[in-house]
Every structure is written in structure tokens, then in C-alpha cells.
């Protein structure tokens, strides 16, 4: 295991996603959500690596128009945009989500920053997460599945919800991850670097 700072997780994730050609804004969103998961002691690294693999093989979608069981919408990449879209349109969205845990991160962040509360329901319409007063209440176990059908909307009525567990940040400012997986992510990030040229060397302090 290797101990990492949250900023390392953020910056290496963003770079790794850029190595796949993912747009800057989307890579940043995903890095933000990943940092949130790390801060809240949630597993993230395997999800990112798997997402990268599926993105390369076109097995996940980044379009709400195109998502189905075989090609679910990537919550890692599009989670932040999706919650903003639903909040702005004030609609109920339903569809297949890959790695729904990342939606929790987006729900909590928009609740804190824009005071917008949302709720996530499973295919049986059971509330499995909602936000209220900047806190995220969630039954994390229900989100272990990597792919599922969900309903996402503005929060309707939290009083009827039975969820009383809210997800809190870790007291630590570090995260322990599998070193081999971390090195794989770093190797992806390394692909965004460029060998130095004569131009950059000349006059740059050499």
C-alpha cells in the first residue's frame, strides 16, 4: 500500500484521464469526484482504472442520450455535469449508471456549494442516497454494484427516508491505495508529458 495526499490523487487522476483524450473540463470533474471519494474513505482507484479501460473500448457512455445496460453512462466522468443538469432542468433523470458512487460525490459537492439537494433511487424506486443541509445520507452498500438503473432528481421529501447514515470526511488527510494500481495510474499520467525540446531548454535556467 502507498500513502497519498489528496492533491496527488486529484492531479494524477486528471492527467491519467487526459492521456485518454478526455476533455479538460470532464477530466477535472472526475478528479474532483475522485478526491471526494478518497477524502471520504471510499475506494476509487480500481474504478478509475476500469473506467479508463472501458472508455478506451467504448463500453461506457458519456452521453445521456446514449446509455443502456451494455453501455451505461459513466458517473465518474459525467457525474458532476449530470447533477448540475438535473438541478438546472428540475427533472427526474433515469438511466443506467456506471460507478454510481461517483454520483454521491457530485450530489454532496453541489449540496455544499450551491445548496441544491438531490436524491438517488434504485430501479425499485427505493431511496439509496439523498442530501440535506450539506450532508450526504447514503446506503453505500447498495452502490457497490458497478452498473445499475437509477433515478436521480431534486430531493423530494427526506422525511420519509429511512436512511440515517451520513457520509463524513475522514479525519486523515491521506489515502492508502494499492501501489501497483497507483503506479498504473501514474504511468497513464506520464503519457501526457512531453520530452523537452531545445526551445524549452534554451533560456530556461540551464
Amino acid at each position, binding site marked *: 500500500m502507498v500513502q497519498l495526499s489528496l*492533491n496527488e490523487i486529484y492531479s494524477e487522476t486528471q492527467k491519467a484521464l487526459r492521456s485518454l483524450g478526455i476533455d479538460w473540463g470532464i477530466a477535472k470533474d472526475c478528479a474532483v469526484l475522485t478526491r471526494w471519494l478518497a477524502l471520504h474513505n471510499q475506494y476509487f482507484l480500481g474504478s478509475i482504472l476500469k473506467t479508463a479501460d472501458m472508455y478506451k473500448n467504448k463500453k461506457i457512455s458519456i452521453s445521456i442520450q446514449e446509455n443502456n445496460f451494455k453501455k451505461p453512462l459513466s458517473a465518474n466522468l459525467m457525474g458532476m455535469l449530470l447533477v448540475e*443538469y438535473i438541478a438546472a432542468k428540475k427533472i427526474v433523470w433515469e438511466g443506467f449508471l456506471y460507478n454510481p458512487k461517483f454520483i454521491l460525490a457530485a450530489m454532496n459537492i453541489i449540496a455544499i456549494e450551491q445548496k441544491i439537494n438531490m436524491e438517488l433511487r434504485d430501479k425499485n424506486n427505493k431511496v439509496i442516497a439523498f442530501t440535506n443541509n450539506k450532508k450526504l445520507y447514503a446506503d453505500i452498500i447498495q452502490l457497490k454494484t458497478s452498473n445499475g438503473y437509477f433515478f436521480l432528481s431534486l430531493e423530494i421529501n427526506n422525511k420519509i427516508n429511512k436512511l440515517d447514515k451520513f457520509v463524513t470526511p475522514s479525519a486523515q*488527510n491521506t489515502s492508502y491505495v494499492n501501489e501497483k494500481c497507483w503506479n498504473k495510474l501514474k504511468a497513464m499520467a506520464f503519457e501526457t508529458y512531453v520530452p*523537452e525540446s531545445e526551445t524549452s531548454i534554451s533560456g530556461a535556467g540551464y
Partner: protein
Amino acid sequence: MINHIKKSKYIENKIPLRDPSKVMKLERLGSFHQSRLSFSRQLINEIVQNKWIFNISEWNINNDGIGHAVINSICNKNIFSLVIFSHSIQDEERSDRVIAEKWDMTFSLFKGKPSKKEITHMSENLKIQELGRHLPKQLTLSRANKSVRIFEKVLDALSNGRQPDHNLINDIGYLVRTTAVYGNGKFGIGDFSKMQSEHFLRKPFQAEMLTVYLIRYFSIELINFLSKVKGGLKAVKLSEIISKHIGVGNATGLGMAPFLFNHQELLHQWIYAKETALSRVLSLDKISIDKQSDIFNLIEQAYQYSVQWKVSDPIQYNKIKILNSDLQVILKNINTKVILNQSYPLKKLTNFFKDDISIETEEILHSIFLEPFGNIIDDLINNMSVIEKNTVSINFNVKEIIEMIEKNYSWALDIDLKKDEENWFFWYTSQAKLEPRLGIRKKDKGFDKELPFDIPHQIQKGMVILRSLPNDMLGTEAMLNYPELRNIIRRIIINNVSPYSEIQDNLIGFNSKPIDILRCKLSFFGASKYDPKSDLWTRITLFQGAPLPHQLKEKDACNWLFPSLPIYN
């Protein structure tokens, strides 16, 4: 005009803030000077106000200057320790390069007092810097080399019972020069966000500033120690006046430039604080005789400072020459003292000289104007940090975003991007240094991995897409359908409420000078004596003129805007 000036409890702003289209140009940002709002000044104010205590708790440095030491800084119940390792290296191994593999000294600012086990860990990892794994209790990571131009000469003088030549001290200004000061989570060190309960870390770059301040203290202690070892009874310590004039050098390049792009809201807060401060002092309808005298004395000090500001770069040399001449004209003009005694003195003084002075002079005058008025501007320091938002405001539709572009990004729309000179450079992260660098598009490989600093290009491309969409489509929907818009729409919406958040020049254009970005950031650090070595990197000095720990109780401990040393010819 910025229309959301917060009302100060001290003074009503009558003079509007300068428009971002004037302030956020590279040429002006690259003329900024240190001011009383700068972070090094904030640190010294914090240290003085809260009566910090400093002590050297470990000094295991041998007679060759090799070993380790720990300097504690104590504020209330908090202790921050600078852990220092002093190494033996060959002259030819000493380099300003950021990825040099050996340094004379390596450092880390540690939260609390390190245990023996933690010191052992740091002894193995600090010396290899980026290649090591560091502890979450470490707040910074740094290294420095002795200045080959001065260190041995000063040691020689002191060990022979003499003070070093003032000219030599003034020409260099430091005994050691850092080549990097990393903070906030790099290479496993602690994230600042989790430590913001510590009062002083809430202000920007305070951990880095404390690190540099303690490095300076160590460099002076080290040379006094070594002179005693070498000279025995005949050795003397560096005089008070010279010690105070010794800062810490820093060689800094493109590595720090992206920070200002990546932290739009923070950039806005810094500039907004400074512009608000300027507006407040320009709005003063009269100033006391004492303050008039302070302003005049500061102009004289700035003149002395400019005389002692020596550089080899021809562009900066000419700027300093003009600055020098402008300040002389202002000092000699009989109207200067007359205007200072009139109503709205600082605004009138600005207007009186503005057509005859350079931007460099205009900006140094602004630093001078802020200096005596801590009582009406120092509250702004508390607004120079920000918790940056990760979401994008959901309230705007396509029409409104287009209007924001037309209003705030006309500078970007006006650039003819078909011209070769507007597509000259690209920014990338270098494989060798893992640091941002510049390449030439038509010559160098790798522009497919370009960093997104081509704001005018993104604006113009974004505008084409946005104009093809229905006016009432929500911004979030536009971004969802066109993810390539996400980055630039985020910037546009941030800029709409934080108007000083965007540098209003084409940063990949032939005429763009990255050194201007560095200078802007360094001015907020409180750097002095900018000594550009090209358009891409500069040497600077930090904490020159600042009080040393034993000088903190002196009456004028916090007044060190333009340090100069008496020169005896």
C-alpha cells in the same frame, strides 16, 4: 468598472476600481511590485502580532557545515519546525535546475516537533526530494544551494574579523538560493486544506513563506557558526545591518506560471484585494503631514532601491533605468509636496504624473501609496484566500453565456487567430522535469498534449458552438451535449463574478512573455530585485530587509518595503 466593491468599515471608496481590461494585461501584471499585502509581509505581521517564538532545538552541524538542525517556530500552542539537512556536494554539482540531484541543503517545514524516527525518515527522503516519499506532517519540501558568488567570500571576511563588502552583499543579496519550495500535498506531504484550522495557514502561501523565512535564519546562523570554526577568536558575526539585508534567493521559472490559470478565483481575490486597497487610498480626501512625509520618504527609498537593483537582462535594465529617472523627476518636482498637501492627494499625484511615467513606475507608486495606510487596507488580507468551487453555477442559458463572452472576453474575440504569431507557442508538461514548459508549435513535437492555456482559442471555438444552439438552452445542457465546452464555460462563469480572474492576453502568442506571469505571482509573494535571466526564468530575493527573529521587537520591524544598504565607495 467593477461594481461590487464591498463597503469598508473604514472608508467609502469614491474612486472606482481599475477595470480588468487595464489591470489584467501581461505588461501591467509584469510590472507589479511587492506591497504590504504581499504574503511575506503578511507572515512577518502575523509573527510580530502574535508574538511567535523561535529557537534552534537541534544543531548537529559539524565543523565542515554538514549535518542536521531543527528550528522551531512557536505560536500559541502550535509548533512548526524547519528540519534542515546540510550536505556535502562538489561545486560542479550545484545547479539552479529544478531536477538537479544534489543540493547543499534540503529542508522541510514539519507540523509539530519531529520524533527521532521522523527525523530518520526525513534524512533518507529529503535529500532526494521529488524521488522520496514524504510524511503527511510535512507541510513543505525545499532545497537550496550556497551562492558561489558570495558564500565563501563572506565566510572569509567574517573569519578574519571583517564585515563583508556592502557592494558585494548588495549585488547578490543572499547567502543561499532555493530552487523549489513545494507545498500542499506534493510528493506525499500534507494537504493544506485539512490543516486550515491552523489560523496562519488560512492565508495564502504562509507555510512556504515560513519555510523561506527560516531558511534565511538558518543561512545566517550557519555562516556565523562556520566563521567561528574557521577564524576562532578573531572571527566576527555578520553585523545587524548586513544580516537584515540578507534575504533568500530563489531561481524560479515556468513551473509556477500555471498556478494563476488553474486558480482563477484565487487570482481574482489577490488582484481584487490589491485594487480595492488602491481605490481606498486614492479615495482619501486628505492625509496628515506625517503621512505626506511617509509617502515622500517611501518614494526616496524606492529610488534608492532602484539604484541598487542590478540586472543583466537588457529589457529589465531599461525598465529600471526609466524607473530610476521617473522617481528622480517625482522627487525633484516642486509640485509633489504641494499636491500631497491638497485634497485627494494620492489621486491627484497619480493624475499629475501619469502621462510621463512608465508602467513600472506607476505600479511602484501604488505599492508606495498602500504602505502607510495599513489601518484602512489591512482588513483586505483576510479576503486573499478562497475556497474554490468545483461545480459550475447552473443559472445561465446559452444567450446569457454568449453575452458574458461579448462583455468580458471581447479581448479574446478581437484576436485574429488565423495569424501565425497568435499560434506560436504551446504549453506542455515536460517529461524530464514534470514541470510546465513552452514549445514552438511549428518546430517542437508534442502539441497534441498541449495544456489548456489557449484561452482566446477556446473562447472563439466555444462561441461558434454556442451560437449554433438555441438561446434558451441551459448552459448545463450545452456542456452535457458538448463536453468540450465544459472547461471554457466554467472559466466564463467564474470570470463573470470574479472579473480579475483571467489574464487578458494570448498566452500562446509570439509576443507573450511568461516572465510577466511569474512577476505577478512573485509580487504577491513579496519578492524583490527581480533579475530575469530570459523570458522564461528569473532570480529574485525574498525577505530582504525583514527582521530576523531577534529583531522582531524593533519599532519598525514590519516596515521593509524597499530594502537598501548604505554603500560606502
